[in-house]
């Protein structure tokens, strides 16, 4: 097992380099650079200043040279500074000679996105697993049908539309929840409990809406997994041994039905760091989705590469974790891995 893990981890390094090379070149396929943003299309601004800026950021050099410079910097795990936001560090904070700390862009956006996505994933699982089980147990009956309808309605509704409607109803008509943003404007002066409540109320809509509308796929997985398992022989054996239905379903059937879910969760780890740019824009949440989208529009190459690199590293790690978790959970796979 350990040999297998070491092999996988070592393979990640050339894979990451390959991914970053391809990403870098694809990124440069789009025409334009940081000097072509709307602010620079001002009749009072000069082309010379834009040219000087290009030289300052090495944008006039050939793409392969720029990639080499980026790779060299990455060797020391220095993700560089953003072009578009006054040289803010891309990843982690940097301290200058005077002791001023400037926070990194990913350092600020990632915790927010992680919090929203992890909460959302928990809520999705907490809702989808019981719904899937109910649908499987009462297959073909009204409970199954209503779960299916509920899921498909949620899946088909455009979440930005639903978000705006709920923002209007919950925030404008009834002053129950804040409409947008992450914190109230007087957040700094609140006591701890008030801060927790404030964050919770701001996150309510951005977390609930995507998780409820995204229930469909996980519910279907659980339901199909359960259906597969419930018709197996060992379940019939368990029932004929006289075990209660509750014990049959929850102690014996469920753990086998949930195996594919482990893979799903492992594969969704890279998704945890990607925020939905639409939801983040509507709710004014400064997360990773908006960071990436803005960076692409502004051609902020260091930020784009930083996010792509972290995303690819997490994808590789997530895949590895999913495989390991599956091996740990399923003895059949474990034996196969140990042999090979």
């Amino acid at each position: 097992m350990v040999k297998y893990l070491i092999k996988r981890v070592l393979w990640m390094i050339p894979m990451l380099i390959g991914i970053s090379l391809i990403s870098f070149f694809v990124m440069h396929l789009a025409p334009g650079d940081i000097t072509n943003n709307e602010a620079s299309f001002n009749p009072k601004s000069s082309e010379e200043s834009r040219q000087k800026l290009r030289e300052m950021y090495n944008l006039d050099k050939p793409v392969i040279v720029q990639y080499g410079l980026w790779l060299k910097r990455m060797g020391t795990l220095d993700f560089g500074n953003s072009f578009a936001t006054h040289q803010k560090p891309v990843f982690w904070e940097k301290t200058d000679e005077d002791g001023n700390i400037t926070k990194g862009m990913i350092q600020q956006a990632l915790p927010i996105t992680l919090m929203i996505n992890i909460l959302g994933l928990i809520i999705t699982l907490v809702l989808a697993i019981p719904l899937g089980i109910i649908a499987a147990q009462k297959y073909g009956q009204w409970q199954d049908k209503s779960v299916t309808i509920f899921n498909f309605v949620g899946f088909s509704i455009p979440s930005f539309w639903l978000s705006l409607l709920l923002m209007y109803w919950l925030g404008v008509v009834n002053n129950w929840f804040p409409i947008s943003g992450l914190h109230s404007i007087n957040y700094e002066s609140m006591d701890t409990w008030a801060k927790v409540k404030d964050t919770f109320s701001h996150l309510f809509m951005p977390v609930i809406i995507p998780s409820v509308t995204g229930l469909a796929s996980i519910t279907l997985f659980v339901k199909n997994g359960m259906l597969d398992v419930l018709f197996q022989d060992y379940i019939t054996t368990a029932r004929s041994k006289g075990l209660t239905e509750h014990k049959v379903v929850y102690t014996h059937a469920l753990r086998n039905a949930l195996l594919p879910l482990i893979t799903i969760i492992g594969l969704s780890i890279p998704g945890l760091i990607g925020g939905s740019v639409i939801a983040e824009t509507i709710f004014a949440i400064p997360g990773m989705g908006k960071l990436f989208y803005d960076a692409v529009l502004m051609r902020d190459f260091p930020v784009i590469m930083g996010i792509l690199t972290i995303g690819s590293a997490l994808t590789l790690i997530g895949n590895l974790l999913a495989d390991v978790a599956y091996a740990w959970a399923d003895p059949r796979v474990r034996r196969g891995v140990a042999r090979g």
Partner: protein
Amino acid sequence: MTSSLLKLNPFSQTHFCKLIFSLAFASLVACGNNNTNNTANIDYSKNYPPEDGGTMVDAITGEPSSLIYMVAGESASAAIASNIFNKLLKYDKNLDLIGELAESWQISPDQKTITFKLKSNLKWADNKPLTSADVLFTWRAVIDEKTASPYASDFQLVKKAEAPDANTFKVTYDQAYAPALDSWAGLQILPEHLLKGQNLHTTAFARKPIGSHYYKLDTWNNGENLKLSRNPNSVLGPAKIDKLVTRIIPDNSAQFLELMADNIDSMGLDPIKFSRIVPSRPELEKKLALYKELGNSYTYLGFNLKRKPFDDIRVRLAINYAIDKQEIIDGVYLGLGINISSPYKPGTRWSNPSLQPYGYDVGKAKALLKEAGFIDTDGDGIVELNGKPFAFEILTNQNKEREKSAVLIQRRLRAVGIDVKIRAIEWASFISRFIKTGDFNAVILGWGLGLDPDQFSIWHSSQQKPGQFNFIGYNNQEVDKLLEQGRTELDPDKRMKIYHEFARVLLADSPVVYLSAGYGLSAIHKRIKGIDNPAPPAGVSYNSYDWYIPEPLRRNEISAN
């Protein structure tokens, strides 16, 4: 191992129900957490005498990259930095230049030297004195190669700048430069004692600025908001409103919802919200006041004058007559725009009152096309020249109003036999792939202009290199001469005549079709008092520092922060 974990059965039905209930309960806990503004009964139109205090909240769609405007350049940076820094001069309510940091100024008889006399006892927000040394430092910074400021060109024309004493700042140009005073009304003066030796692209000052104007920056919550509070050392005296909070809300609909819920006090509106939505809701009319002011910008259809047939003036005039501009103003801007005949704001001295915009005349358009040799030989409704049908693509950026205008233009041109396709492209690709390379036929774009009438960079024949703004390729010696004269003529009346003539030649030549000059539309909460309505030439916010919020109308401010 797995069995013991799953023995917990969190997913049994009873547990499931308990979980649903606890989620619902938790959400209720979060409810009612907002400032309960019981604003339903307050009469916001009541008048109150001026008083100090209160917080005004507004919103921007993007975060400023830095608060040093000469480096940042984007509108978000300008919006915040303009509350923090002063310039030597400013424009008053009638758009005449008056002193801000300068008490007075003198132009030498040869018109090449301007001597500014600064007000005395000026202080920065950190109590250090503000002197001409700071102005000299700022000038050096803006022309410095390392700063690479986009706005350096005006200041690079200064041959010599001196600060002979703490209250005097003297600049000498190579030749008389008429836009000079306007440029000094735009340069935000930075403190030398805090920025000397610093790289303006990396200095921490950009996020923690110290200025001299009405407000200073208290907090910058990344991605969320910026909070300003009154600067006690303000060189122009104290503002009335105590705090300004700017929230970063990227989505337009979210901003409007916040405006409706009373969480922000002002917002820029589009024509639909201005004419249809707000007037149709009595609860909004009760608390929001609408303002409209003519901006200093216009939209146009520009031709690539280096390509046939746009080099033929008859073709350009034909297209001009074929487009119904009033239809575009009424359809796209709901009537909130003006049909212009010169590239200047109507009503200002630079706008030539004797010029009439081209009207909508299909007959004239068809006749001109025929004269230029375009005839429909095969009866398919599209005219041809030498067998080639007259078809081209109009490019524009992803701006809903420009796209809609393009659709109306397409239909009107089809009626005279021209086949037009429309393509909307993402901005950076648009500029770098099409504009910079000159690879386009026609574009719909706009110009947002400053208050000085000089338009050298847009129309002069020397400004056609890739990346410069005469990308349509306009080449007119008469216009070149007028533009050069306008730059060196300091007498306002003589200057006015030059630009009137410039506008006349431009209209006759029609290198672009002026589509409309739009109104700036905004809604400001009625709790903000002291706003002039209708807006003077300088716009509604010229006196924003005298606006006040009477105590009974203020938001529930739980704490002073």
